[in-house]
């Protein structure tokens, strides 16, 4: 698999606080990679390191095949854009002037693409209005436009839905999906709004206490999170035998419990089990979401927003 970004045992401490601890992740090309973690888990620190705003204490990362410590990393960075925490825009400039300024920083001689960029983010009608008079959603979209000014192949969005109203969240989501599908831009997006993230991400990285505790694709997660019935019985072997006979997909999760996937008749199952002198102790439906998966993974409820 071709990776846009890989990190290798990244460590970063602020005084005695370890913000990142041996953090290793892999972002495939074309993915929308969601970094999931509670506040203070290390998401923004990771992004700051990748963006070159801060230096890791140890470890490194590879961006488009360039090592973070090599001189080529500057060239690789030309292929990325980012919004770190808040949109980085001059508040006393209009949307057009902000993009023009970024064009100059990038060394793009022609301003021809500005109109398309403004249209892409839905700010084509803002005229000379200064960014300080924009709504938060408009500023966020302008920040994305500035990040897109260099036609990057990879963009990093740190909590893009923070502070946005529901309409703004939908707009940003649609924009990200559009960029990913139409322009094949790889996206790294950090969020603790799991419901929102689950509508976007193709891959997930779960971070806690500065460590990546799980890296999983959306399809893998879907299979893990699909609907099932958890059955607790007195004899797990009998249950397995019956389920095999019934042709049902299942997974034994402990010595007395199994998850059964797909629909089945409870009456038939109980009857079959009773013939094997196996008693059903409990039975409940499970519909695991990203949120419950995350909570189970971390073993706590913490500050997770839904």
């Amino acid at each position, binding site marked *: 698999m071709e990776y846009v970004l890989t990190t290798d045992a990244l460590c970063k401490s602020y005084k005695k606080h370890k913000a990142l601890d041996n953090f290793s992740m892999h972002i495939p090309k074309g993915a929308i990679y969601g970094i999931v973690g509670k506040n203070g888990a290390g998401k923004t620190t990771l992004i*700051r390191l990748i*963006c*070159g*705003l*801060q*230096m890791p204490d140890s470890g490194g990362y590879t961006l488009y095949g360039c090592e973070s410590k090599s001189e080529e*990393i*500057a*060239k*690789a*960075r*030309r292929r*990325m*854009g*980012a919004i*770190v*925490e*808040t*949109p*980085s*825009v*001059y*508040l*006393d*400039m209009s949307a057009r*002037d902000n993009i*023009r*300024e*970024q064009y*100059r*920083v*990038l*060394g793009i001689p022609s301003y021809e693409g500005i109109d398309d960029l403004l249209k892409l983010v839905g700010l084509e009608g803002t005229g000379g209005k200064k960014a300080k008079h924009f709504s938060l959603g408009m500023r966020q979209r302008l920040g994305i436009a*500035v*990040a897109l000014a*260099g036609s990057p192949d990879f963009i990093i969005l740190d909590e893009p839905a923070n502070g946005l109203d529901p309409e703004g969240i939908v707009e940003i989501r649609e924009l990200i999906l559009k960029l990913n599908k139409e322009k094949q831009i790889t996206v790294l997006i950090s969020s603790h709004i799991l419901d929102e993230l689950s509508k976007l991400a193709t891959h997930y990285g779960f971070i806690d206490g500065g460590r990546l505790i799980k890296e999983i694709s959306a399809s893998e997660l879907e299979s893990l999170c699909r609907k099932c019935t958890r059955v607790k019985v007195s004899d797990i072997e009998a249950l397995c035998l019956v389920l095999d006979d019934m042709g049902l997909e299942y997974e034994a999760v402990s010595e007395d419990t199994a998850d059964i996937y797909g629909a089945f008749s409870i009456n038939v199952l109980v009857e079959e089990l009773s013939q094997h002198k196996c008693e059903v102790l409990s039975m409940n439906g499970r519909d695991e979401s990203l949120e419950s998966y995350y909570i189970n993974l971390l073993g706590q409820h913490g500050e997770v927003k839904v």
Partner: protein
Amino acid sequence: MSRLLSAGFMRLWKSRVFWTLVAGMFLWSLFMVYGNHMECIAKGETDDTLTNFFFGYGVIIGGAVSIFASLFFGTDYSDGTIRNKIIIGHSRKSIYMSNLIISVAAGAVMTAAWILAMLAVGLPVCGWNGFDAVQVLVYLAVSFFMITAFAAVFTAFGMLLSNRSVAVIVSFLVFLFWLQCGAYLYSRLREPEVEPIYTMVMTKDGEEKITDASYIENPMYVRGTQREIYTRVLEFMPTGQALFLMQNEVTDVSFMIFGSFVITVVVTLGGIVCFGRKDLL
């Protein structure tokens, strides 16, 4: 770095802070011309020449540059736009150096605004006396290096202090303290070597009459090595140079330029190292 300079100068062109300071220098210059001219008329003095205060910008430009650098570069921190430059691969050294160049250019334009007002209004009103073209060029060269040194110091503050308000306050206070130090040394050097002592008697008519006059050594007068050190320190410091420029007392031009050059290089190298290690948010 050319791309950063291009972007920086475009921003400078649209900067309200910059144009306010340019206008401020222009108006202050006009005020100096007008005030000096009116004073000369009131006192009946004939020595009303532009050269008396033409280089007076020296003591103002440092403050103006301190405000400019801290506000202009502080905006990059407060708006977060400094990140846009780093994320796309510009080196911190390039960002620092381009900002220093912009700072020097801004200081030069502010000084030009002062000079322009002097020439446009002051020259016809007050006239010109005592300075030839070479002298003017020498003073302007000293001024340029002095502005560069001020720009280097206050660019460092602007780049290393992420909080814009703190940067403005600290930079301006540093400038005032630096100017105060210069003013103290300069005043000590201006102390007369001897002071007159008068013996006076009261006449029968109630008038005071001097009967004897003698001179005693002034204890505040700085002598020997100490005087040499005070002079060198003043010539080395941009605030000291500003005072010499204002009083048209520039003597050791090469040492003054050397002083500004050393301050610029040392502060800039230190600033680049510190900025390179700074964790940006």
